[in-house]
């Protein structure tokens, strides 16, 4: 395992305890895997704040409680604002050791949730914001988001005579949070769990705001068989469709791929890019 900044974390050392269990997530859901792995690192002294995204829909539908940690659900634009409130409330009760974890999809992060996230980072509150990026509004039926990659078919960027899928490049959220002078930010992929978990651990140890955007493939949204989730999450990195990057102490480092595979390999496995290959 890669060693950096004194952090060592081995998958074999992760607790067997599941802090998210019994969710209604689709088979092969990259998002629930991202949350499950993150909670294994963060442990039971964690509070989740999330929005009515896929995550809420599959974990906290009354009387279901798929988390073994408290969960505060709030409106779509306000994940990070509610995070600030929870941080303040826990501080008043002398429970500052508890990790406050805001979780949102790409829509709840880069689009409707961006203002609140910017506010909370700028205030310097002590929290982790986890964006599980599946590159479209999946819960509402695969509409494009600011995080949808160029060329992807979605239900609001359908491929037809006049339009060939998404016509704008993906919003560079890492640079947006970096511009806030955030203490720690990173992109990750569930296809590289050791790298992802190390970054979660770093985020936990960070004083102040930390941001992690993890690529989380979505079988129904991207149009691929559900057993390919981890494979695609790796292929995205290997083909350069997704970059693993870290921003800390004002410096951005991008993991270099020495011999990138042809992008076609990645695109050809997904229905959303079928018109391109």
């Amino acid at each position, binding site marked *: 395992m890669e060693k950096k900044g004194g952090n060592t974390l081995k998958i074999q050392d992760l607790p067997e305890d599941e802090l998210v269990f019994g969710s209604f997530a689709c088979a092969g859901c990259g998002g629930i895997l991202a949350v499950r792995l993150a909670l294994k690192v963060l442990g039971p002294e964690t509070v989740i704040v999330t929005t009515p995204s896929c995550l809420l829909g599959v974990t906290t539908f009354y009387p279901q409680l798929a988390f073994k940690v408290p969960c505060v659900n*709030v409106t779509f634009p*306000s994940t990070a604002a509610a995070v*600030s409130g929870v941080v*303040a409330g826990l501080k008043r009760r002398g429970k500052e050791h*508890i990790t406050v974890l805001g979780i949102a999809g790409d829509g709840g992060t880069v689009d409707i949730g961006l203002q609140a996230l910017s506010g909370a980072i700028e205030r310097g509150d002590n929290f982790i914001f986890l964006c599980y990026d599946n590159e479209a509004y999946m819960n509402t039926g695969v509409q494009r988001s600011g995080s949808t990659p160029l060329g992807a078919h979605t239900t609001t960027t359908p491929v037809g005579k006049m339009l060939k899928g998404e016509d704008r490049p993906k919003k560079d959220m890492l640079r947006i949070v970096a511009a806030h002078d955030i203490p720690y930010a990173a992109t990750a992929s569930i296809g590289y769990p050791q790298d992802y978990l190390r970054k979660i651990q770093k985020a936990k140890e960070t004083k102040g705001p930390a941001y992690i955007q993890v690529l989380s493939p979505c079988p129904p949204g991207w149009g691929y068989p559900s057993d390919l989730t981890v494979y695609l999450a790796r292929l995205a990195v290997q083909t350069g469709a997704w970059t693993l990057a870290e921003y800390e102490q004002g410096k951005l480092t991008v993991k270099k791929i020495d011999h990138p595979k042809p992008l076609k390999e990645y695109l050809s496995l997904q229905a959303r890019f079928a018109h391109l290959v």
Partner: protein
Amino acid sequence: MREYLNGNEAVAYAVKLARVEVVAAYPITPQSTIVEEIAAQISRGEMEAEYIRVESEHAALAACFGAAVSGSRVFTATSSQGLAYMFEMLHYVSGARTPMVMAVANRGLAAPWTIWVDHQDSISCRDTGWIQLYVETAQEALDTCLQAYKIAEDPRVLTPVMLCLDGYVLSHTEEIVDIPSQEEVDRFLPPYQPQVLVDTQRPAVFGVGAGPDTYPAFKEAQQVAMERAKEVIRRVDEEFYALFGRRYGGLVEDYRCQDAEVILVTLGAITGTAREVVDFLRQEGAKVGVLRLRALRPFPVEDLRQALKGARVVAVLDRNCSFGYEGVVCTEVKAALLGLQQPPVVVGFIAGLGGQDIRREDIEGIFRRCLNSTEGAPL
């Protein structure tokens, strides 16, 4: 301690005396001086609280929600556009049964853009599941803010309270206000003891999803809590009176209504002017009275029927309009009086929108028109 305070300062003092632990607010005229004063109190070391400087009203209420479910007594304030921006959070907070108090310095809604008072902002939020209390004076704003925490946090209620005070007329107008001591307030309002809160030892969900089989039960519980709130509001007002010697009638405040032929129903600060007109007309022998609605939600149907049943004409002064129909309070009063043996005629008057002054003569005119009306003749 007696001091010259305006309504906003009175609210800020109450927030300190209530030992509020977390404040999150975004400035907007005419509310801003409430949260400025709170910030100053914290800065001077007179108040110990977290002050979250949020980037919007939507975020203000979301932050308050997060802090409240984490076990804190919280406060925010807004007006007009800010309240409209909070709309979806209003339902979240009340639906998740989160006690908190928000001051609304009432102001009209754009367009046309305005900063002056009417009640369109809070009345538009009538159905958001918040208790709405409208005050008449700066003193009542302070007292009601303290009462509001006790009402909201009552285990039978667990419903947020909107404390509505007329912009400028109350928010920026000074009067002599009696500020109770911290010891007295502590006796009246003990620390907040939530039954369920964010606790890693007892994980719970706040703001769950619910399907068609369970959703109605949550909504019914909210309605039951609102019904219970009526008695709690009355009782808290009496408890307050026992300790501080001031009370405001609970849900409605009656002024010379007992034998009145014409009764004017009001909301907020204009009631003071209406009382003067009542005294003036009473000298002429006219049997007139004023009934001030202190609570708009829960709606005091029983109190209204009791107070208005003997009147010939009930005039309702609305500082709002439900476009395409009439003033909202007028509709509510009509509905409340249905089924009375000899129900009074209810007439609506819309006045004072966007800060237009409602003068003594205007109210006198309303009374005279109603007094001079004869049975069956339209007003």
